[in-house]
């Protein structure tokens, strides 16, 4: 077992160790640069809404980008939830930095809404809504995803309260006091935080599963006649878990490198465990892809073959290959080796490749769907549609919004510490380094 960093074990309960927000000034070059690009992204969004109206094809790349944020930033907070649920001690230093991603992910909702507005009528094409027509698919999808984002933000906020409520909460304004739940650190309040975070986390997972099923079907499968795959929502979720872990790894690496507040607490323990998670999800990615592909190959049904030719074999072959290398081939052959999994910088490099590969994967899945004109009927698609390359506007949109995600994260991390003080104190209380006869060993307490 990799040991925690000595600083994590040495945290004092009295006086209470309190972390600070990220020290990033407005004049920091990177921060300012990201801010400018973020503004560009917002401008591109407004321009697109104004100029494109309900032209679905012009929302192809923004939709792929949204699906990418659903896979990466919206899934990242789950690492916090799962390590909390399973009492994974190694997760203490990274839970807050994972949960903070729920705020940038929330912003991507602004892309989803106009994209949903361009979806055609459900009549005459396959959908999960069958005969039901009231508020579907647009309103229903927006509602589910909206609830999901709000749940994620609430979970992040709730678990930050003990750190934000520093000082006497009675001296704060009424609004602040309400937002901080009049936090005094009573036993009841701690119990509430623990229980509520478990339930909110469970809701978040369920909403992610249902929301992903809805949007991947409505903005993906149902727009390509003949594409019928029950495993596709799961594939999207699992590749999302992989990309979410990759985002955590990159964030952890960057914060460890550039934040003196966080550096002492991040070490091999986090690298080893995140590496294991990444390996597991990489294998699962291939499994879900294969379960899909082998059935289509075997049955040889013309409508399914045509859909596969669009998404994999023919039309979008290049992004498929880029995605396959980024999501599976390179990560698998790198992280099966222990020495790679022990080094955070190596994992961060592989994770960057995964994040980029995931983006290409979303492009090959959702760009053909949103740009397809022949959405009605049950296939086979004939003739196959041509590939839709991104134009300058699409590229500026993607760059701007990617920068917006990072900008919002840094802005939030300035106010809300990226490392959870109360959880680090809890970790120091529940873990001790000790001796067993002549050997060094860890003592891990497991309350409840």
């Amino acid at each position: 077992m990799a040991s925690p960093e000595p600083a994590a074990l040495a945290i004092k309960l009295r006086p209470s160790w309190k972390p600070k927000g990220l020290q990033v000034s407005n004049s920091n070059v990177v921060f300012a640069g990201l801010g400018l690009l973020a503004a560009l992204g917002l401008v591109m969004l407004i321009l697109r809404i104004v100029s494109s109206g309900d032209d679905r094809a012009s929302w192809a790349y923004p939709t792929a980008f949204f699906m990418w944020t659903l896979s990466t930033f919206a899934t990242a907070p789950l690492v916090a939830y799962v390590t909390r649920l399973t009492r994974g001690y190694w997760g203490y230093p990274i839970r807050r930095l994972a949960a903070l991603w729920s705020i940038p992910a929330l912003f991507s909702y602004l892309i989803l809404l106009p994209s949903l507005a361009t979806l055609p009528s459900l009549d005459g094409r396959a959908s999960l809504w069958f005969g039901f027509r009231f508020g579907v698919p647009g309103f229903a999808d927006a509602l589910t995803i909206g609830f999901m984002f709000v749940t994620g933000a609430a979970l992040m906020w709730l678990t930050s309260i003990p750190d934000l409520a520093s000082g006497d909460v009675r001296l704060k304004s009424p609004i602040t006091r309400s937002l901080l739940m009049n936090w005094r650190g009573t036993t009841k309040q701690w119990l509430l935080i623990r229980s509520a975070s478990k339930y909110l986390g469970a809701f978040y997972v369920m909403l992610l599963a249902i929301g992903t099923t809805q949007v991947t079907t409505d903005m993906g499968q149902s727009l390509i006649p003949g594409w019928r795959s029950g495993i596709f929502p799961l594939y999207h979720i699992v590749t999302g878990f992989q990309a979410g872990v990759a985002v955590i790894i990159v964030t952890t690496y960057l914060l460890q490198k550039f934040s003196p507040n966080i550096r002492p607490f991040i070490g091999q323990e986090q690298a080893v465990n995140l590496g294991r998670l990444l390996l597991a999800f990489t294998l699962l990615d291939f499994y879900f892809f294969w379960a899909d592909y082998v059935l289509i190959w075997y049955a040889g049904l013309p409508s399914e073959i045509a859909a596969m030719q669009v998404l994999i074999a023919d039309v979008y072959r290049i992004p498929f290959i880029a995605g396959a290398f980024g999501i599976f081939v390179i990560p698998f052959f790198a992280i099966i080796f222990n020495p790679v999994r022990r080094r955070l910088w190596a994992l961060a490099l592989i994770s960057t490749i995964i994040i980029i590969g995931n983006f290409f994967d979303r492009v090959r899945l959702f760009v053909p769907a949103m740009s397809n004109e022949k959405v009605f009927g049950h296939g086979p698609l004939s003739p196959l549609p041509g590939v839709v390359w991104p134009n300058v506007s699409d590229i500026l949109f993607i760059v701007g919004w990617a920068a917006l995600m990072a900008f919002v994260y840094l802005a939030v991390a300035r106010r809300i510490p990226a490392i959870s003080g109360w959880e680090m104190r809890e970790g120091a209380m529940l873990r001790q380094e000790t001796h067993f006869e002549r050997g060094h060993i860890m003592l891990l307490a497991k309350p409840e």
Partner: protein
Amino acid sequence: MAKRELLGLYEEANEAGDAVEGLRDAGFPDTDVEILSSTPYPEGAFGEPKVEHRLYTFPFAGAAIGMTAGIFWLVSAQMSLPLITGGKPIVAVPAVFQILYEGTMIGAVLFTVLGVIFESRLPDGIGLYDKRIVDGYIGVTIRASEDDLLRARETLERAGAIDIINNEGSIMGAGTPQGA
């Protein structure tokens, strides 16, 4: 000169650790000292050095061999009866992948198990052993030349051994040896 073995039995883990330390201080190499227990103690609990092994290489070797054998069998089986079915190629990746995967995995498992047996130095029928170890006593064995045997025995006794055993039996007269 041929080495002979002595086994010291201890009630407490700390005493066994004292014995290991004492033997090291007396100049006996770590490779001649062995600790026997019926419960797995954390590594280093007796001050023994880290165990060096190459167990991790066995699964990779087995997987490579399994995959190679699988490819050979799959390709030759299908080429020997080249029937085209469903318009698919005679040797097609989606068709053969499953069996190839199983062949790779069983190769990995078989070689890992062989590696476990090899790295554990099994079958082991030559070392000293005593049944009291199964009752929770801890054994410390030392292989020493005839000249050093007395020094080894004294070191074991000084650490608090309740019994010392050689191939002939108990030297302190407290029990009989059981070879493994």
